[in-house]
């Protein structure tokens, strides 16, 4: 119970910091009436919480699915697809506030469908099985291919477009508005509930597909549900905030150290932890070089890589060995 209270407290502190700090100085007494706070900081903070949480849960579930604790939600090619969609939207100068997120979302879904199809061992017919190892390789391949096309487009683009595309690829929450918050808040509960319902069978899957079957799990439908739900979560995250790396990789690991590997506890812990991490990272991204802004993906990478190195050492040392 105490660790849950601690985690909730962390989220509250992260939210408070995100609302209080920013390039513009807003006196404490004017917080409630300030337009900057109401229309910029609060929706952006909520979006950071939702996106960070989604990425962490997607990461935790994909790690269980591909049975590899080093899986990241973007390892399965979604970032490549989303990046391609976004860069196309920028290059084609599609206008309107939703053009870029929709193009990125479409790109992510396209990559997801392609990876899924490639991951079905034995073709698409009846009896085809989703092979997590093939899924992983297909994700890398699709991501690399999309990345090549993206780079080709960027190399032909004009300087400002190039900079925009480049910044987008590193992730950022500056597009946050109450509308985006609403869309994301309505969207993510469905995949989150699907994943939470799969929490127990995912525990079994850690033993292997056959042992999980013997313990009563319907492994084939389970794998498909988890892959689609986790990808849909990642797709919406990338659509509204670009490619934010390491949240989906690091947070599940840290959550496992504290909450164990049972997904019933792991998912909520990862959601809150991922939300808190992205809130802190986004606040740092806004404040560090104010009035300019760093892409938040740079901050998560700067924090995430050393943490990751630390976890790898623990692993090698046998403390958290699998």
């Amino acid at each position, binding site marked *: 119970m105490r660790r849950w209270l601690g985690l909730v407290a962390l989220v509250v502190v992260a939210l408070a910091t995100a609302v209080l700090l920013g390039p513009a100085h807003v006196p404490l007494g004017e917080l409630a009436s300030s337009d900057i706070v109401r229309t910029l900081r609060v929706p952006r903070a909520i979006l950071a919480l939702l996106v960070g949480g989604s990425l962490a849960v997607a990461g935790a579930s994909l790690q269980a699915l591909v049975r590899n604790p080093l899986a990241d939600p973007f390892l399965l090619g979604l970032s490549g697809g989303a990046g391609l969609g976004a860069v196309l939207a920028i290059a084609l100068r599609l206008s309107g506030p939703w053009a870029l997120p929709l193009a990125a979302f479409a790109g992510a879904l396209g990559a997801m469908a392609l990876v899924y199809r490639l991951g079905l061992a034995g073709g698409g017919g009846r009896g085809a099985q989703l092979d997590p190892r093939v899924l992983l390789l297909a994700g890398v391949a699709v991501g690399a291919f999309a990345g090549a096309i993206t780079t080709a487009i960027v190399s032909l683009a004009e300087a400002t477009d190039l900079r925009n595309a480049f910044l987008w690829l590193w992730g950022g929450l500056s597009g946050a508005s109450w509308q985006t918050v609403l869309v994301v808040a309505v969207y993510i509960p469905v995949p989150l509930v699907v994943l939470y319902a799969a929490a127990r*069978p995912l525990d079994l899957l*850690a033993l292997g597909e056959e042992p999980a079957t013997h*313990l*009563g799990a319907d492994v084939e439908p389970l794998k498909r549900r988890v892959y689609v739900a986790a990808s849909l979560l990642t797709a919406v995250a990338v659509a509204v905030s670009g490619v934010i790396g390491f949240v989906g990789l690091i947070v599940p690991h840290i959550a496992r150290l504290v909450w164990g*590997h049972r997904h019933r506890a792991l998912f909520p812990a990862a959601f809150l932890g991922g939300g808190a991490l992205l809130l802190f990272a986004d606040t740092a991204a806004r404040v560090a070089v104010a009035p300019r802004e760093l892409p938040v993906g740079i901050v998560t990478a700067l924090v995430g890589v050393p943490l990751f190195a630390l976890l790898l050492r623990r692993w090698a040392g046998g403390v958290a060995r*699998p």
Partner: protein
Amino acid sequence: MSDSTALLSAQRVTYRYPGGSSDALRDVSLEIRPGAFQAVLGPNGSGKTTLLRVALGLVTPSEGTADIAGRPAPAWSRRELAQVVGVVAQREDNLFPQRVRETVSLGRYPHLSLWGAEQPADRAAVTRALERCDALSLEDRWIWTLSGGEYQRVRLARALAQEPRLLVLDEPTASLDVRHEMQLFELVRALVDRHGLAVLMITHHVNLAARFADRVLLLADGRTAAEGAPGSVLTREMVERVFAWPVAIEPFDGRPQMIPLRQPKESA
């Protein structure tokens, strides 16, 4: 259900793996009743594990039928089946660190509702299973710290936590030393005698199967070579033919025991 219904019944099943050039299993029948210890013996590649897959409805035979507790195997949901049959598979992974009690409590999965929490009855079942496998003292250990014999007892406990009526073990004593082998066979025999469990065990141990099992099915090249009480199945002629090696068979404790002979010298 009456006691006379077979818990597991495979009738004249034939199965060929997709793309295989010959049948992995041909016209094999097997029936296990409550309270029976059935061993399946045979050389490598004789179809033992395939028979298990067919009997548990993991694959569909091209001919013949597989029933579990009087119902066709494919008609069972995996979850319902896991309430009746507990399986200790040949291999498993451990992706994330787990403690013994945690991994054994995974055996309660088929009894839990989708959203519900573990009940005191579930925890009691886990404790009971650990006790029966003499593993209660291990409950707080990390599983990677266990010896091979301890780990097999823990896996057996997980299958027992399912509270099954039939226990299926696929080569449970591979890579165990004599003491742990004997402990495991004694344990399985006690589960049959004391708790009325039915057991289907695939094993390479001709002698231990002969001493502990009630019935033996001997497979060769996917076909039934012999089936029945150990004394009638494990004759010298039969064992030599199936395993393609000269042996002597000596009675011990009223059961046949096999002694493999040295390579016969080239006769002049």
